[in-house]
């Protein structure tokens, strides 16, 4: 992997981490687990712009660092489950959803993200009680997913200078 690529991926990871940390401070939705997921703008962007391996690296580095910086180590299992589900789903969906409909794959990613977290929550708590929040998570997830997806779409349309750096 070329140094330039590494720097680019590291920059994206850092961006996602910054967004994630800022977002931790502005949770206004009173539903447990519901978040805007703004950091996923970077994820969606990476899914469409980079290879599977590179995207996975960005996302897992972000989740790991986010958990450490966020000071909530016990949340790592939820974050990871969400990330794995979301990433797998989006990478699969990417094959049929063209660039024009990024918002759609972002919504699907958001739904899968919440699904993964709920499944883990059910396993960890050994209780189905958390399932009752699931519909609310789906609704907020769809809205937030559409928003982050549109953000990513505008980003990609700008076509950030990728090619002019050919050395």
């Amino acid at each position: 992997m070329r140094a330039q690529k590494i720097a680019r991926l590291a920059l994206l990871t850092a961006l996602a981490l910054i967004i994630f940390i800022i977002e931790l401070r502005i949770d206004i939705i009173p539903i447990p687990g519901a978040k805007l997921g703004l950091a996923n703008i970077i994820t969606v962007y990476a899914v469409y712009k980079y290879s599977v391996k590179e995207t996975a690296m960005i996302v897992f580095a972000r989740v790991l660092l986010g958990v450490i910086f966020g000071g909530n180590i016990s949340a790592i299992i939820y974050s990871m489950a969400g990330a794995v589900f979301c990433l797998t789903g989006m990478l699969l969906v990417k094959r049929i959803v063209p660039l024009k409909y990024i918002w759609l794959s972002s919504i699907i990613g958001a739904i899968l993200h919440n699904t993964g977290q709920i499944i883990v929550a059910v396993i960890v708590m050994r209780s189905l009680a958390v399932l009752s929040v699931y519909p609310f998570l789906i609704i907020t997830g769809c809205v937030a997913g559409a928003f982050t997806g549109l953000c990513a779409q505008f980003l990609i349309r700008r076509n950030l200078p990728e090619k002019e750096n050919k050395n």
Partner: protein
Amino acid sequence: MTKGVKLLIGIVVLIFSVAVVFAVMGLKKSESTWVEIVQNNKVIYKLDLSEEKDRTFRIEYPDGGWNDVQIRDGHICISDADCPDHTCIKTGELRSENIPIVCLPHKLVIRFSDEGAGK
């Protein structure tokens, strides 16, 4: 718009509407006045809110950590806790049967229960 995209949009719309239906159903108020406080899947308190006096008590978590449960005017909520996310506090008062107050870090759930209603 390809077939795949249409299909996926259809699926998303379907999931979304099902979620809305369930969410609306979940918002209905509970008729029961009994609540149970569950820690680590064990019921540790069972209270009748209509008869409880206003008070605040602390639930300790064996591995360290606590939640302050507040009862006021027949409503129950978590008023303070040392968990990192404070989701349980933000949930506010327990209103619906289907939305329990959950503190994931402390494995604590406060929810309405039917079983005590007849007693």
